């Protein structure tokens, strides 16, 4: 019964998502400008896309942000969780403080960090007023490192949730496992790496999904912190799509960029899903 009841919703979802996706892909092969027009231009849009400096910078930024965000979120989240797991006092207080940024939207986070990293009001100003006059810390105004300024804000916002999830995962590990490994004489770090982390596989998959969704949403952060600047140094693909479609009225170019993003996601997801669910059946 429940399955039958869900059919209309599933059908709608399929039509909207699959239909919308297909439509986007198809129209990326047209010369549509302000309005969609079925005037075929072959791969022209893609050629133009990959010859656009701004798109290349966007891709580079997303790669840097994605890889760093993945590594640092996992490492920092896990280390914080492992520290909190040592039965320290005031655990609840720490957990609340570290989780708090997650309650803020990316836009608010972006604004907060725009102030903190602003050379005239934030960290640089404070350190200088403490007497270190030559101190320089203005990542948001330096083309070479602006993406790391955004990364800091992203990590600050997202790591708390990762930590809480990892902490729950660590708490789920039977204490007797720890005792057994101590009796076996296995050092703590080895117990984490060879026994505990493999046992936390489901938690890691959940956190990976969350981190990935954070990477996709970096658009909001960029808009709030730098609007893609200085110059085009902190552009990201989603912003390229948005700007081309709605500011420069170049629909087909935006569709082409979207299709490339879809392709990239598919290249990551499909082999993973194949491994994950393919191997599950064999178990």
């Amino acid at each position, binding site marked *: 019964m429940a399955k039958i009841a869900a059919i209309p919703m599933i059908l709608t979802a399929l039509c909207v998502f699959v239909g919308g996706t297909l439509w986007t892909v198809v129209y990326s092969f047209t010369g549509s400008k302000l309005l969609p027009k079925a005037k075929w231009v072959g791969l022209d849009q893609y050629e133009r896309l990959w010859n656009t400096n701004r798109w290349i910078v966007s891709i580079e930024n997303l790669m840097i942000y994605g890889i760093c965000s993945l590594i640092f979120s996992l490492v920092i989240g896990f280390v914080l969780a492992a520290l909190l797991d040592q039965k320290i006092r005031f655990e609840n207080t720490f957990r609340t403080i570290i989780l708090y940024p997650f309650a803020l939207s990316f836009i608010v986070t972006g604004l907060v960090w725009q102030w903190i990293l602003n050379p005239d009001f934030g960290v640089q100003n404070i350190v200088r007023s403490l007497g270190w006059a030559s101190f320089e810390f203005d990542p948001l105004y330096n083309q070479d490192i602006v993406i790391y300024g955004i990364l800091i804000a992203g990590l600050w916002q997202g790591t708390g949730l990762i930590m809480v999830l990892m902490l729950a995962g660590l708490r789920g590990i*039977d204490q007797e*496992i720890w005792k*057994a490994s*101590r*009796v*076996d004489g*296995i050092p703590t770090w080895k117990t984490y790496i*060879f026994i505990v982390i*493999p*046992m936390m596989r489901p938690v890691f998959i959940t956190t990976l999904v969350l981190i990935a969704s954070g990477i996709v949403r970096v658009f909001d952060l960029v808009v709030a912190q730098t609007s893609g600047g200085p110059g085009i140094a902190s552009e990201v693909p989603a912003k390229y799509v948005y700007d081309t479609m709605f500011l420069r009225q170049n629909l087909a170019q935006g569709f082409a960029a979207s299709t490339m993003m879809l392709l990239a996601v598919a290249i990551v997801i499909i082999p993973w899903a194949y491994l994950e669910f393919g191997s599950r059946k064999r178990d």
Partner: protein
Amino acid sequence: MSGNGATSVEIKNLDLSFGAVDVLKGLNLSVNEGEFLVLLGSSGCGKSTLLNCIAGLLDVTGGQVFIKGRNVTWAEPSERGIGMVFQSYALYPQMSVEGNMSFGLKNARVPKSEIKERVARAADILQIEPLLKRKPSALSGGQRQRVAIGRALVRDVDVFLFDEPLSNLDAKLRADLRVELKQLHDRLDNTMIYVTHDQVEAMTLADRIAIMKDGIIQQLASPGEIYSRPANLYVADFIGSPAMNLQQGRVENGHFLAGELSVPLASYSFEREVAGDVWFGIRPEHVLVGDDAAGADLELTVKAEVVEPLGSDTLVLTSVNGKRFWLRISGQSKVASGDSLRAGVNAADASLFDAGDEERL
């Protein structure tokens, strides 16, 4: 059988507190080499805590622990020469059975050939050779516990510690593995310290049983001694199912008096002076029934209220002086509830306890 008299594990004045809660207070215990010692007590009495102190998994608040004459109070668990088996098996789930047994050895840089030898030997003893390549998730509970025992075996240690290793298994498997553990002990001759709350396990496995209550050892003696001469009221009540029949009364002129009852105590061997109020206890299986009751120190007629046939024998619940009074009679006897029975009690089979400090008299 139980060792050559040398001391294997010795605990002196051990204190352990969790914050303000004192779990163990000045506990002394000495375990002989090759002995099978069972720590028995109800849940929460501090058995696991004591075992963890011996293993070095808890830092003691005071006192000392010696293993084989060496003071190991502050030594790491892995350096104490102990192997441990847990209730939840605590196997490393991502490693094969072989991996579980060899991980500690690999980490201690034991040569490969020796690891192989030890794993093979343990697998042979425990008959788990066909399982070596499997993951723990593909094993039954009994097999998992066997692997956990194997992981302790390969460590080639003097002392094995077990924390309720059979409690997660179903009744049949528990009985089987109990026998295997006993055979294992006979074969290896290691010292074994075994924590359980199950008195059947304790009685069947132990060379000596230490009965604990609130972190204090109430009695440390052989199963037979604990059964027939419980050191205090708690032990008397704890051991035996159904529990010992108890009557409160007083001793006057060499007789135990309670309500209508009067039992001459001439045949009871007192351990200390009798003074006033006492508890009188008799085990259900020591109550004589029918013709056997004739000539006993106390003869009385009781009415069967509940009859529980167990096959080999039958339990009959009656009441004496308004208190529950269990009898254990042969499984062949035909008794129905409502029947009147003649029962007899001999003071020689009984246990007397002081009503004040509850110690054996």
